[in-house]
């Protein structure tokens, strides 16, 4: 039996599951986003540190499948160095693409990462007593 890699995941997804970047709770973050639901098998927490509107650091905690872990990991990499408003532009598709694609049945997992990021930015605005530049809060992740 050869060992060709599990699931229908890209090598980069596998790499992020094997060695997730930026794991863990952040000490005094400037924004936190929590999405998902343990009943559905996925919960994601995303932390950001912001300086002069620029995200200088990000980390995450995730309970979920490989795609959930990899997209969490990837999104924390992607936001670093971006302004909070630029971060809001990051779509789940962009995260999936950055990972070299996701199997169709796993695309919904990347939505979690996008939502967690949006929530973290929203939380950042809230903490500053500002209004985020988007109308309504992200909707809860329901199934």
């Amino acid at each position, binding site marked *: 039996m050869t*060992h060709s890699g*599990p*699931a229908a995941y890209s090598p980069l997804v596998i790499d992020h599951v094997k060695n997730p970047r930026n794991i863990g709770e952040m000490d005094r973050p400037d924004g936190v986003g929590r999405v998902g639901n*343990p*009943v559905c*098998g*996925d*919960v994601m927490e995303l932390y950001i540190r912001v300086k002069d509107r620029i995200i200088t650091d990000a980390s995450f905690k995730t*309970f979920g*499948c490989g795609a959930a872990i990899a997209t969490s990991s990837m999104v924390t990499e992607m936001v670093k160095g971006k302004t909070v408003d630029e971060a809001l532009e990051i779509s789940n598709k962009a995260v999936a693409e950055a990972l070299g694609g996701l199997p169709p049945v796993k695309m919904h997992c990347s939505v979690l990462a996008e939502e967690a990021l949006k929530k973290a930015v929203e939380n950042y605005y809230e903490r500053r007593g500002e209004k985020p530049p988007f109308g309504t809060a992200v909707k809860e992740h329901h199934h």
Partner: protein
Amino acid sequence: MKLVYLDNAATTPVDPRVKGAMLPYLEDHFGNPSSVHSAGQAVRHAVEEARGSVAALIGGRADEIYFTSGGTEADNWALKGTAWAKSDKGNHIITTSVEHHAVIEACHYLSKHGFEITLLPVDRYGMVDPEDVSKAVTPKTILISVMHANNEIGTIQPVAEIGKIARERGVLFHVDAVQTAGHLPVNVNSLNADMLSVSGHKLYGPKGTGALYIRKGTRIDSLLSGGSQERGKRPGTENVPGIVGFGKAADIARTEMAAETERLYLLRDRLSSELLDRIPDSQLNGHPAVRLPNNVNISFSYVEGESLVLNLDFEGICASTGSACSSSSLEPSHVLLACGKIAEEAHGSLRFSLGKFTRDSDIDAVIEALPRIVKKLRAMSPLAPR
């Protein structure tokens, strides 16, 4: 990296002797068993011999064995074929909430066609109460279908008792023995089974093979129409190499079962007790004693099943999770939910299914790797206590 394959409930490797038996039928003996000429008749004998081997494995007669393309087809045939054949007598079918999808979905299909399905509950170990079966029987009941052992959690059902009830009440009884045939003694007569499903690739035979045992005299419609193969009940040119391999696998299983089972019990119990010992917040799923000799299913709180499977895979260990989170639906295992698990626990279940090529060193590998992996995943889980 040497593979530690502990997913034998999903599929087994083909026994080298099975492969050896099949090869001639992929080469020289390629005839169609329905042909009159020698090339056809040479393989006809081989098919009939295999039929005898499968019959012997489950205590039936050769002329009560019908070859199918697998366990799924056998289950569908038993359920739908009986339903259509008996629809004049009644429209009620009794089964359990922990059956394989092949049975559950066949029932779902039938429920859309006017049949009423009773899905019996199970206790926290996944076991059905024969009393419940008895109480569920109505004058409209035409079939009771209960699996011999559960593919996810390994719990063995009291099928002999249920068969007795079915017989007494004059209701047909189907047993999905896909996880037990070749692994534990199965006898259609002591089970009072009128139909029984077997799958070749779960007992070291080839994929694409299976059989439905149909007791002589049982009324059943065919799923497929066509030629006169399988005494007119299951048309289509026979998968000769597959059938020959299936027969060989049945022969091997029958003669080696007793010793193999003993060996597996020891491996299974060591794996299960070591993991439960070494990993906090872990609990065994399924019945602690009345379970398949090769099944270990454990829930690890705060972590999700697929990520466990992936991390094990990185270390060359093949296992599976009951969680269907890997499919497009986010439903956790219907089996674990039926056992009363909350969804969160159900998502963190891991199944190891041992096989005849499993060695002590394979168990060692899991015992070494899994505590590390669970720890790593819990460290990154937002659900784990901080």
